[in-house]
């Protein structure tokens, strides 16, 4: 049986959405004129945000990770860390906020392909015809920056960020760092990065590669995350079981008990809620 995502929403959240304080009361106007052409785009954007199963992980219309805080996506190589993180980024971009995607192992072109591919699949899934137009409006909200792993350092990142912010080229609202090596010496740099995130008041997401042969640390977290777990507020793991990849909250966010589990659809790499007999 297939279920619509909005049906899978908990009752209290539906109620909260209806009584959102920022929504004008019927009959009043915010004074903003929405052009006819824009309206479709705005409706489409809202629709995509509402339908996004990611919202189950966080607060309504808010980021899963707060400003100045760290989030991590953990999985073994090839399970779908980048696919998940790109969807987190797209969700932020849809809300008109800017994402700085820093990749330490892929060139700009390859990261861009990830985004295009996920957007293309989202368009197919939600049967959106005019995705190109939406993509054109989203693209200015993303900037990809790549570093060589060995060349990545805090001063370098700060210098690049200053280049961007001082000239008002790009003011990130979220930073993603993909491919950062979580080795035993990572703590000092991560700490410094956390300070930087605090100064900029932006959430930072990391991808963490785990390995099949490694046993979890004493606290039950993967060995890569355990030594630095104090710095992270949220950790989400991708757990392949059989042919399904489950999205599990390791730390910081909880999925409501009543909810069907979140999964990464192996065919499309899109986030879905799992319902009986398949994914919705």
């Amino acid at each position, binding site marked *: 049986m297939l279920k619509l995502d909005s049906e899978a929403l908990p009752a209290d959240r539906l109620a909260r959405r209806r009584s959102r304080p920022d929504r004008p009361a019927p009959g009043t106007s915010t004074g903003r004129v929405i052009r006819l052409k824009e309206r479709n785009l705005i409706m489409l954007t809202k629709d995509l945000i509402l339908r996004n199963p990611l919202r189950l992980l966080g607060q309504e219309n808010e980021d899963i990770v707060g400003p100045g805080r760290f989030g991590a996506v953990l999985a073994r190589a090839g399970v779908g860390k980048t696919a998940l993180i790109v969807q987190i980024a797209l969700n932020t971009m849809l809300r008109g906020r800017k994402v700085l995607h820093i990749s330490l192992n892929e060139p700009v072109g390859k990261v861009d392909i990830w985004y295009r591919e996920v957007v293309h699949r989202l368009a197919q899934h939600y049967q959106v015809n005019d995705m*190109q137009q939406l993509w054109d409006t989203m693209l200015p909200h993303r900037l990809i920056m790549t570093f060589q792993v060995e060349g990545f350092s805090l001063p370098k990142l700060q210098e*690049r960020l200053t280049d961007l912010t001082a*000239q008002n*080229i790009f003011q990130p609202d979220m930073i993603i760092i993909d491919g950062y090596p979580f080795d035993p010496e990572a703590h000092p740099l991560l700490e410094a990065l956390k300070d930087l995130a605090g100064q900029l008041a932006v959430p930072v997401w990391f991808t963490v590669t785990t390995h099949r042969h490694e046993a979890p640390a004493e606290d039950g977290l993967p060995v890569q995350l355990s030594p630095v777990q104090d710095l992270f507020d949220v950790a989400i793991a991708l757990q392949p079981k059989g042919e399904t990849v489950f999205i599990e909250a390791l730390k910081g966010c909880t999925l409501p008990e009543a909810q069907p589990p979140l999964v990464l659809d192996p065919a499309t790499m899109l986030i879905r809620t799992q319902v009986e007999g398949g994914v919705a």
Partner: protein
Amino acid sequence: MKTNIRHLRNIGISAHIDSGKTTLTERVLFYTQRIHAIHDVKGKDGVGATMDSMELERERGITIASAATYCQWKGHDINIIDTPGHVDFTIEVERSLRVLDGAILVLCSVGGVQSQSITVDHQMKRYNVPCIAFVNKCDRSGASPFRVIEQLKNKLAHNAVAMQIPIGLEADHQGVVDLVRMKALYFRGDNGETIEELEIPAELREMADEYREQLIDAATMFSDELTEAVLEEAPVTTEMLLGAIRAGVLQRQLTPVFMGSAYKNKGVQPLLDAVIDLLPSPKDVINQALDLNAEEAPVNLQPDNALPTVSLAFKLEDGQYGQLTYIRVYQGKLEKGDTVINVRTGKKLKIGRLVRMHADQMEDIPALGSGAIGAMFGVDCASGDTFVTPGVTLTMTSMYVPEPVISLAIAPKDHKSEINMSKALNRFSKEDPTFKTHVNDETGETIISGMGELHLDVYIERMRREYSAIVTTGAPQVAYRETITQRAEFDYIHKKQTGGSGQYGRVAGYIEPCSEADFIFDNQVTGGSVPTQYIPACEKGFRNCMAKGPKLEFPVTGIRVVLNDGASHSVDSSDMAFQAAARGAFIEVYPKAKPIVQEPIMKVVVETPAEYQGAVMGSLNQRRGMILGAQDEGVMCIIESQVPLAEMFGYATILRSLTQGKAQFTMEFAAYKQVPQSIAEEIAKKVAEKKQKVA
């Protein structure tokens, strides 16, 4: 005419601007004894490199037209096409690659794989040209050939493998170690013409063994014989190893990398040996033509002199003796006095004089055999035409020609210049399909269009030098266009029934945006409300409106017109009336469909030292550019962005001054996108001013 086609090589030398390919060609010509003195590209002797025969090329130190040249090396005939490195001349590179069997990809050992190398590599892939790589400038400070090999692997996805290792680098660069023969090669004499073959220096022995191991490892993929020898620990012979590498190169699965310094005369002769040993002869390459009698089904051509001739004109030049047509014979042969047919025009013509080119000099030859490249005189044709033996209906596949993105109005200074200008324009547009020219009906101005500022600049300069036509140029114009954003319905009656023969036609339907084509006309009329004979007139009426949009008079694109109703009059309806009705309907409905102006957006890739990254990003941002990404490459950094073409004029100068000349950029068309409101208003103002001026 040599009969052994296996001893023929048609090769190109492609690379990023300033990686030294013209210098390399100069050395090749010297060692093959085509020239007897070496002149440097920007040499103090003022002679300039042999291949840069145009005065302008010598002055600017860039190669503009691809000059073909012929030489011999160890009993083999080699045709070399020297290709331009600047992106504005990409059509030249594309045309050269179309007729080549193999190529040398020249890379700078300091700059490595640069943006233009990536473009050239794409083109090589498109035409399936096998290549070997030459890492030049190993004498420069910061030279790192192994980093370049890594970049070939990572950035261009080549299975690159070193064929040599350098003996010393930078100022200490003395020669190379040949990993196939395991010998150290030193280049002695004033011009490096004497090669001294010595034992590998002891300090390099271990490194050489290691790289040879890697080379053999990569080559085993292509030869069972070699694999067996390696497994059985039998000695690997030179022939065995070269055979395996050649097989890999021909499949485009392996890119052997040579190194040296053309400027310092090091490593060029081994590269020539490699051209013979590793690159394909015309016999090793499959070339296809399209059969016009079988719905353009592809046909494989055989490089056999006995078969009917199929040849392709790939470049035209207008010299002092008339039009010179560069031609490659794919099948059969071309002989003086032969009659051939130009497939495009169907015209018969007789081959008068055949020559073999050597930069700007030539030697007469009686015939061109299969696979050969030469030139013929006195043939009137366009670039890309196919010449065949009468009775053959094959045509070579058409070449990819990009649409021009920039226009410039030019005006001759006096009457003499006017005559010369038209002569020059006629020749240039025939030679270069990306260069177009037309006269604006309204302003009477002559407009030239091309692929970039430098492209047009060079032609204007050539007009002045070669034709003494002095022209003044207007500001460059961007090719804007209009489109609609929503569906709108029309119902229009064209009626003129007062005195004389009347006109009547009614058309109804809707227009809507469409992305599949520039213009689609969809006839959904049922019940004969618009009689069938008037439907083409309706279509024509709408189509004629596309050339000039009602909004700002730019061409209209991306429109689907659906005609679903209408009316006619038994006496007063005519083709003319329905055309007028369609025109009227379009003008009426167009504003309702929310028209917008679009402008060409260019993908601009800037390669800059990392310290200038901020400045460069700022400069792109100022130009309404959207930065897509910044890629860190150690000392260098690559910034990808999308910038409106209208903002890119003069950017080369700005970039140079921002970065002390250390950065370079490439630009290619990406998409048409809506012009922001404020800019659209500015454009509207300019259009209105221009209209007033004309009036």
